[in-house]
C-alpha cells in the first residue's frame, strides 16, 4: 500500500478577481522509502499541493475536491487536533527559509525538545536527550553548546540542519521538503542534500521533495511529477523523465535548463 495517496486534489483560491485554480486535479502516490520529486516553475502549484497535504491552506484558498490518504485513511475529514498530531509525528515539513520557520526567542534545543514533548508523553530530560540525538544525526557540530543557542546566531546551513533535526526527531513516515536548499550556497546545498538522502535511507522514510531545480531532482528523486498551471503534465520514473520525456512541457524544460555541457563536467 502507498504511504501517501493524493487523488484528484483541487485547491482553489477565491479572490475578488475570480477563482484561481492553484491545484487543479492533481493525483500521485508515494511508497514507503520512496522520494517523489515535484518539479515546476513559480506559480505551478507545487507549494499549494504541499500545503494542501498538511491542511495548511489559508483563506481565500480552499480544498474543493479530491482526497488525501495517509496509509489508506483520509486526512480531509480529520479534526484540527487530530491533524496537529499527524503533522510533526507522521508527516513533517522543512521549508525554504529556516529563519522564518524557527521561533527567534526559543533556543534551538528547546524548540526541538518542545516539538518532541508536544507529540510524545516524555519527561523533559528524555525529550532533551532525544533532541540532542537528533542534532547529532544532522551533524550539528558542538550540539551540546548549540542546544542553548538562538536561531539568529546560526549560519544558514546550520539553521537548515536544525530545521531538519526538528522535522526528523519524531521519525516521521513522510518528510515534505519545500525548496529546502534554495536559499543556500551550492556547497552547503550539496551537504544538506546528501544528509537528507542518508537519513532517508537509514530510516526508510518517504520524501516529497518540491523544487524548481531539475539538477536536484535528477540527483535525489525516484519518481518525478512535473507540474504546470495547477496540473501534473507528466509523471514517471526519474530516468524516464530525463532520458525519455513524453510531455512537450517536460521536453521544453529540459531543453531550457542552463547546465554544464557534458564535455565540461568534472570527472
Amino acid at each position: 500500500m502507498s504511504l501517501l495517496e493524493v487523488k484528484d486534489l483541487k485547491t482553489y483560491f477565491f479572490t475578488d478577481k475570480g477563482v484561481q485554480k492553484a491545484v487543479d486535479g492533481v493525483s500521485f502516490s508515494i511508497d514507503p522509502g520512496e522520494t517523489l520529486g515535484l518539479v515546476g516553475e513559480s506559480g505551478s502549484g507545487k507549494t499549494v499541493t504541499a500545503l494542501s497535504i498538511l491542511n495548511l491552506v489559508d483563506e481565500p484558498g480552499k480544498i474543493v475536491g479530491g482526497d488525501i490518504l495517509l496509509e489508506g485513511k483520509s486526512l480531509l475529514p480529520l479534526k484540527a487536533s487530530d491533524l496537529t498530531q499527524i503533522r510533526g509525528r507522521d508527516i513533517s515539513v522543512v521549508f525554504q527559509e529556516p529563519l522564518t520557520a524557527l521561533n527567534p526567542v526559543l533556543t534551538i534545543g528547546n524548540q526541538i525538545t518542545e516539538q518532541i514533548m508536544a507529540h510524545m508523553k516524555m519527561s523533559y530530560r528524555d525529550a532533551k536527550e532525544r533532541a540532542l540525538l537528533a542534532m547529532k544525526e544532522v551533524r550539528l557540530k558542538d550540539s551540546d553548546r548549540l542546544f542553548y543557542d538562538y536561531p539568529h546566531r546560526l549560519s544558514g546551513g546550520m539553521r537548515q540542519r536544525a530545521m531538519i533535526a526538528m522535522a526528523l526527531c519524531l521519525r516521521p513516515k513522510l518528510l515534505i521538503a519545500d525548496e529546502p536548499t534554495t536559499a543556500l550556497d551550492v556547497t552547503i546545498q550539496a551537504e544538506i542534500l546528501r544528509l537528507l538522502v542518508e537519513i532517508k535511507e537509514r530510516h526508510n522514510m518517504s520524501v516529497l521533495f518540491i523544487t524548481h531545480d531539475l539538477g536536484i531532482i535528477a540527483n535525489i528523486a525516484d519518481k518525478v511529477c512535473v507540474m504546470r498551471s495547477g496540473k501534473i503534465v507528466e509523471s514517471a520514473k526519474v530516468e524516464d523523465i530525463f532520458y525519455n520525456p513524453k510531455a512537450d512541457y517536460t521536453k521544453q524544460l529540459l531543453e531550457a535548463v542552463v547546465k554544464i555541457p557534458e564535455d565540461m563536467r568534472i570527472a
Partner: protein
Amino acid sequence: MISVKHLKKYFPIKKGLLQRAQGYVKAVDDISFSVAKQETLGLAGESGSGKTTTARLILNLLKADGGEILFDGEDILRLDRNKIMGIRSKMQIIFQDPFSSLNPRMRIREIIAEGITIHRHMTSKETDKSVDEVLEMVGLPSGYKSRYPHQFSGGERQRIGIARAIIVRPEFIVCDEPVSSLDVSIQAKILNLLKDLKERLKLTYIFITHDLSVVATICERVAVMHNGKIVEIGDTRTIFTNPREEYTRRLLRSIPIPDPSRRRHFNK
C-alpha cells in the same frame, strides 16, 4: 580593456560606545585580473566571497582601500570627477532583481531613456528613436514604452533592464546575477540575448554569479573567488575539467547536474 591590480576593500567591524574599529572584514583582499576587449569574464563564488564588492569597486560605487583599476589604461580610482563621468557612460550594470531596480512610477520609456537624458542631449524625437531601437534589440515590442514595470513578467523586466543599460552605448557591462531570480525556462533566453548583444555591440562583460552552470554557458574565462581572494583564474573549460585548487573542485562537485546517471557521483 580592464585591468585590476592588487585591489583591496576592508570593511571595519565597529564595536562599543565609541564605534572603534575592532578589526576588519577583508571583503576583497588583494586581487588582480584583467579582461580583454569583447571578452566575458566570470567572477564566480559563494555568498561572502567578495564578487559583488569587486563589481561595485570597479563601477566606482564603493571606494577602494588600495590597488588600481585601469580602464583603457587610465586608473579610475585616481581620476577627477569630470573624467569619471566620461568613463561612467562607457560602463553599465545589469542587476539581479529587475523589479527592485526599476522605478515603479516611471513608464518604460522614461526608465530606458534615463541614461541618455543624463549622459547626452537629445530631442524627444531622437530619444524615442533610441528607445525603439533598443527595445527591438532586446526583443520587446515598441508598444511597451507607455506601460509601467509591474505590467511585465520577470523575463520581460530583465529585458527592460538590459535595454536601459545598452541605450548609452557602453563598452563594458557588469552583469550582477542577471538570471538568478528568473524561472528555469527564461534563464537560457536571457543568457542568449546577452550573448547576441555582446557580438552585435562589441561588448565586454564581467559576469558575477554563484551559478557555475551560467559560467559554463556564457564566460570564456572565470575567476573563482573565496573569502575575498581569487582562488583560481583561467579559461573556463580548463578550470571546469581540470581544477587545480581543492576549493574549486569542491564547488564543481557540489553542482547537481540534471542527469540521473551522475547521481552516484553527487552523493559521494
